[in-house]
């Protein structure tokens, strides 16, 4: 094999940077949120669909996913852009979306940056929340059944930091759904 010329080494290093930096960046940002983010519990609804590349997952939807706002906070042309949503905790320990804004909150790092859709019918924003919880294909159907049987005691544990939300796990009666046999 020939030795690489200086130009070829430069091209090769640039290629490695592009190939590895993107996935590593994705991993680092998620790990940071998992490590330092504030923990919240949300009630969810779930069912079991399939992704052609990543196998089975539980499709989850947050029960509390709306924030009241008398008027839309952005003009129509920017309706589909990102918003900052603050998360609060109710007396029962579960979380809810407290307020929505188009500016980054400065007093806390526990906010979630996401898209939201305004409805003039009930003057609320519907917040776009995480929808996928990947599971082993052997367990996902069983997980859906367990979930349906214990719908009142099922919730998703998440961590939030600087606009990023990462799922820790779905729990039924306090037990991680992946570990239920």
């Amino acid at each position, binding site marked *: *094999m*020939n*030795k*690489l010329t200086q130009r*070829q080494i430069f*091209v*090769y290093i*640039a*290629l*490695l940077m*592009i*190939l*590895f930096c*993107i*996935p590593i960046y*994705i*991993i680092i940002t*998620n*790990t940071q949120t*998992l490590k330092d983010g504030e923990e919240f519990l949300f009630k969810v609804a779930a069912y079991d669909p*399939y*992704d*052609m*590349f*990543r*196998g089975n997952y539980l499709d989850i939807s947050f029960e509390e996913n709306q924030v009241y706002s008398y008027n839309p906070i952005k003009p129509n042309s920017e309706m589909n852009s990102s918003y900052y949503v603050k998360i609060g905790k109710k007396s029962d320990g579960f979380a809810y979306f407290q307020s929505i804004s188009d500016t980054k909150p400065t007093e806390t790092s526990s906010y979630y940056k996401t898209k939201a859709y305004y409805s003039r019918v009930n003057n609320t924003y519907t917040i776009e929340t*995480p*929808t*996928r*919880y*990947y599971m*082993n*294909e*052997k*367990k996902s159907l069983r997980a859906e059944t367990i979930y349906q049987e214990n719908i009142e005691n099922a919730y998703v544990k998440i961590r939030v930091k600087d606009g990023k939300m*990462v*799922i820790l796990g779905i729990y039924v009666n306090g037990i991680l759904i*992946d570990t239920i046999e």
Partner: protein
Amino acid sequence: MNNKEYNFLRLKLSELVNNSIISREQYVEADKHFYNYRKDKTSLVTIFTAIGVLLIALSIITVFAFNWDTIPKGVKVLISFIPLIITSVMMYRCIATKEDKISLYTSIFAPLSIIATNSLITQIFHIQMEIAEMFFISMVMFLPIVFILRNHMSLLIYGFCTIIYAMTINTFSGEDLTLLKTIFLALPLFIYNFINYVENKDSSKNMLMWLINTIILSIVLFSKEVLRPDVTIIYIYLLHLITIKLFEKENVISSVLRLMFILYLIISCISSDMLGYIEYMKFGTDTLILSLTAAIFIYLSKAYKDVKEIFILIFVLLIQYTKMDLELLFILINILTIAYGVYKIIDGNHKNVYGKVMQGVAIILILIMIRFMNSDLDFLSKSIMFLITGSSFIISANVIKKRLGGNINE
């Protein structure tokens, strides 16, 4: 003689014509003579071996996937980088040796390894990413490889990924492709042709291809509201293939029809088990434009004499317009695709045209991949199927090699 040497000879021959040393007729005769000496670097044995290795690699990956739950998170992350590390080693060899064979293997392996790594990472961390978004990130990562390798295979695979991306973004995300993304997706074609033109200034072919593509992009920019962006991208790539074919020795119209047919069949296969997409395809402008283009080509060229596939194309188009049971439609399209692939392999083998055999293999392979990935089979069954199919490709490659007496380039 490889393609570069053949092109060099053609260049020198055209210089002789320009200097009136030989006549135009003599040039054509000499060109025909040298064309026969051109050995296809992408031989059947190489392709079969590459496909075999790829399928066995997929089999190993699916075995890991089967036991995924029991593996610790850190190890999972490390495993997800293995395909990328292999691609990096292959790319090093490509840059260092410039071997056509390694370059071909890498063109096939790299996009799959990138998609595999991204899929695994998003799965491990439950990252909220739609298929379209993941495909887009994978294509951004694959783009530099396309430019470094600069072979038709990587460009075609990029084009194929582009089409899948364009289809998924409309079908699953409910979002339209933005103009910026449309340009980005079509960009490699323009840069690719432009670099080829700059590096090989005598080649009027590259210049013409570059011009044609620029015109197409301009049309796209102005006709965004007329055609759906995903369909437009399909046409950009289709027209690019046509421009390549324009300069080959085959009947251009026949080639265009064949390419149209293969592309449409693949799209139908992917979409045939997606209820929403069938509805979308049935009444879409793409079906209408394809039917019209096919009709014009048939009328102008009487190509139906050469291209029997046109009858199957019309059949596929017609059944998509009927209110046929969706399951039956799914089975029919898949059977048609397998039959067409097998026909290509047998016909190519009979006529000793390995290009045809390769087309047949590619069609069947794409179908296998689509069906395996999109089926409800568990990972262990998928792994066994990949292993069996991969091994049969390698065994076939060895049988062919032995029959050819080791002369794998023939």
